[in-house]
């Protein structure tokens, strides 16, 4: 069939193009602009080529922060995905329990990030925090301000508390879409609880799990506000993630060139990893 060319269509997409330009393209290009030039103020710019990129890639600071990010995301995903599935499987399917559970699950998601950070910052304090006092009274030497391990544990528990419900809600949506006949047929076929999970529930949750996995990966890899509020990147540099390091570099030290280069590298890493996850998970989907 002959394609119809209608140039008026361009006018239709114009508003969106303008919006996207202001919200994404222009800021991104500004960052690109900074990453390849050097400036000493007064709007004077000198071409720097790939110097900033090389500087960032050769610094230990970058690789250490990146390693922390990867470890953090790995731990978060390893806890939140299975935990989310388990909770979703045990949520009621009908009755008054459904709205109650859904509201309870949605609550942490409604709280702004910096408030979550503040809550846990106070909650975990050894002098006045409920958690901090309780743990200390058990005889455990817990202090997230001084001990890097404690700081990590606090951040991980906070993230699990904050975001597991997202995984739960997505999985639950996948589960309730399974018709009753599947469970009845499985019963008649004599399937075990595990088989029902493996051959009915998991395949039906696969798509939403993929989304949950990607969202949780991207969010945890970009995490900034909560560790900034709770630990400020410390003690030492132990919870300084790429995002925190980036802000320190750009706003603390005004090293705009390296900060811009780091931003772009950071962006490309997330893009690349998300693409890899997506490809791996969808190809296994097609085969399986």
């Amino acid at each position, binding site marked *: 069939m002959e394609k119809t060319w209608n140039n008026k269509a361009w006018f239709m997409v114009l508003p969106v193009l303008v919006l996207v330009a202001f919200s994404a393209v222009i800021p991104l290009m500004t960052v690109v602009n900074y990453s390849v030039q050097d400036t000493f103020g007064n709007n004077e710019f000198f071409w720097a080529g790939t110097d900033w990129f090389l500087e960032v890639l050769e610094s230990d600071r970058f690789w250490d922060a990146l390693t922390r990010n990867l470890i953090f995301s790995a731990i978060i995903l390893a806890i939140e995905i299975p935990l989310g599935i388990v909770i979703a499987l045990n949520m009621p399917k009908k009755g008054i329990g459904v709205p109650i559970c859904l509201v309870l699950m949605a609550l942490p998601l409604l709280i702004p990030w910096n408030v979550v950070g503040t809550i846990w910052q106070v909650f975990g304090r050894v002098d006045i925090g409920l958690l901090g006092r309780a743990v200390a009274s058990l005889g455990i030497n817990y202090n997230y301000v001084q001990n890097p391990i404690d700081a990590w544990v606090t951040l991980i528990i906070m993230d699990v508390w904050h975001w597991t419900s997202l995984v739960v809600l997505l999985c639950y949506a996948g589960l309730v879409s399974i018709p009753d006949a599947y469970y009845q*047929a499985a019963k008649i*076929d004599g399937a075990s609880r595990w088989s029902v999970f493996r051959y009915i529930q998991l395949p039906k949750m696969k798509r939403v799990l993929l989304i949950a996995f990607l969202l949780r990966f991207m969010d945890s890899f970009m995490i900034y506000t909560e560790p900034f509020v709770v630990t400020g990147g410390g003690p030492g540099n132990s919870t300084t993630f790429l995002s925190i390091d980036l802000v320190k570099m750009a706003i603390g030290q005004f090293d705009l060139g390296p900060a811009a280069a780091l931003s772009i590298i950071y962006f490309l890493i997330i893009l690349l990893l998300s693409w890899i996850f997506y490809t791996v998970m969808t190809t296994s989907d097609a085969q*399986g």
Partner: protein
Amino acid sequence: MARIDLDHIRHAYGAKPKSEADYALKEVHHEWNDGGAYALLGPSGCGKTTLLNIISGLINPSEGRILFDGTDVTHLTTQQRNIAQVFQFPVIYDTMTVYDNLAFPLRNRRVPEAEVDRRVKEIIEMTGLGGWAKKTARGLTADQKQKISLGRGLVRSDVSAILFDEPLTVIDPEMKWVLRSQIKRLHKQFGFTMVYVTHDQTEALTFADKVVVMYDGQIVQIGTPAELFERPRHTFVGYFIGSPGMNVLPAEIDGARAAIGDQSIGLNFQPKIEAGAKTELGIRPEFISLGREGMPVAITKVEDIGRHKIVRARFADRLISIVVDEDGEIPAEPRVTFDPKAINIYADSWRVGEEA
């Protein structure tokens, strides 16, 4: 294979049924023969799926017992009852291959792998899914998926009964015929007890030895297709079976005569009517003959549906349908006669017999 006894079964979905109307399934007390093919026929919401789920054990009846070959299975699970069921929408495990789908019920029961292989190959052969055995079940068409659902039932050689819950609803018309005759052939070959729920009368009548007609939570008649056609026990059966349905006309019964409006019709028996009952006369359109003699009618419409014509006419101020042969002529001053042998008399919607 088993004989199924339904012993005073009643079921209500609410916790505490107060009146008869709270029961989705009113009292059912019947015995179904080993190896029989039964069709549960009725409109949506008449309780046929409830009854099926009670037999399969997915629902526990509020009252009554259910026996397989004389053994009480009321409180046994579906698995323990050893039942197979095919649902309205095909249920397949879509990450498994066709072969694994069919092997699934056997492997769950820890059948030795050599036996599994033998049984599955047999079923694949029977259902004609040979080329698909090693492929995942996801890409199959609806009728192939339904064949797998059925195959998962047949693969267990020892099932007590196979239950079908409107299995052909999502199947294309021409495949319906193929599948239906395939199921029928398998039934003949294996002789399993078969219960088949449907709201399609053609399906029920061509399929089953005995058709169980349900209406408003109760079984109104169990009979062979011929019995349902000639002697409907309830006016509902008359309406529901046959196309068009039976003509049911309010009638005054006086001895062996029935009066409809100002027309009087002689009966070949004397119905036994209790005083105060609402009486009706039922006659199938096939047993009314249109000609120059008899009682006058006014024709309103003639529908030609191929092999015969359906004449809609006004008789004693009531609309009736008459089936006329394709080349049967319709006279200018039409009159009708009712075949006395085909007349049924109903009191309060239930068919009445002869005065003793």
